[in-house]
């Protein structure tokens, strides 16, 4: 098992193995998302407070969840790359950032669209999740900006790793602060933080959607990491040999 992980950390092996894994993530992902979309839109009963608008939850919550998961993946792999000096780990962090930013954007956009019929405004500062997601977006932008500002790849990897780690420690603190801050206002929130006190018919599509999103995110991430690895290793022999022997 350990040997497998060791092998995985080597770029040429990862490059090959990831290509095999991707379809195994895409297919279940699409199936789950397909089921969840159908069930969420047509099978789940309408919420007695929000009517059919609550169905946006099936996109908003998975996006928000993924935006945070992506940050954690980014921070952890950056940390692993920094401490154990594994180049592939840094590539994963670099690849995860733009994806995380996209999902953060999706969470913000769907949250805003959800807010319009619910509160009448396109933005509600009182909703802690929206505000947290906004700060999360800034964190992503900062990370990507730092990477972009440093030309040397190794230096960019290490610098952004420090930033990601400091940021990761701050993320729970930020969430806590925003929660406290919005609780002072006692304003309306999109999703009751009471958790899954939901009707199972409403809950299962949500869980399925979260899982489906996660699978698809994994596939996207692996694809991006492959591109990233190939780019970083473009001058190495294994790449040359692979391309000459027909590529993949």
């Amino acid at each position, binding site marked *: 098992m350990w040997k497998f992980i060791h092998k995985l950390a080597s770029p040429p092996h990862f490059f090959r193995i990831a290509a095999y894994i991707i379809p195994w993530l895409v297919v279940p992902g699409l199936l789950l998302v397909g089921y969840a979309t159908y069930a969420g839109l047509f099978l789940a009963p309408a919420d007695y407070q929000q009517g059919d608008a609550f169905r946006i939850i099936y996109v908003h919550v998975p996006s928000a969840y993924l935006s945070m998961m992506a940050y954690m993946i980014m921070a952890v792999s950056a940390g692993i790359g920094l401490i154990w000096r594994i180049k592939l780990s840094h590539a994963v962090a670099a690849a995860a950032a733009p994806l995380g930013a996209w999902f953060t954007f999706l969470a913000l956009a769907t949250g805003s669209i959800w807010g319009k019929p619910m509160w009448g405004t396109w933005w509600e500062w009182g909703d802690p999740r929206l505000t947290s997601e906004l700060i999360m977006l800034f964190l992503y932008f900062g990370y990507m900006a730092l990477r972009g500002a440093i030309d040397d790849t190794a230096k960019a990897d290490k610098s952004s790793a420090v930033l990601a780690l400091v940021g990761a420690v701050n993320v729970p603190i930020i969430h806590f602060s925003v929660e406290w801050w919005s609780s002072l206002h006692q304003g309306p929130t999109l999703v009751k933080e009471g958790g899954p006190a939901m009707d199972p018919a409403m809950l299962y599509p949500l869980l399925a959607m979260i899982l489906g999103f996660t699978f698809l995110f994994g596939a*996207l991430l692996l694809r*991006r990491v492959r591109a990233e690895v190939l*780019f970083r290793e473009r001058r190495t022999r294994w790449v040359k040999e692979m391309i000459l022997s027909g*590529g993949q």
Partner: protein
Amino acid sequence: MSMGGYGAYVWTCFALAAVVFVICEWRARLRLRRVYRDIEVRIKALGDTE
């Protein structure tokens, strides 16, 4: 389909999600393809001069 008047909002959100996924997939594939092409060009160039 119209969902009590909220239809536009709900469908927009789902469509937006689909668009984001497609964009990410596309960009990832595009990047991979471009890196391949650049490497092939480089190898060919070096191969001619060697």
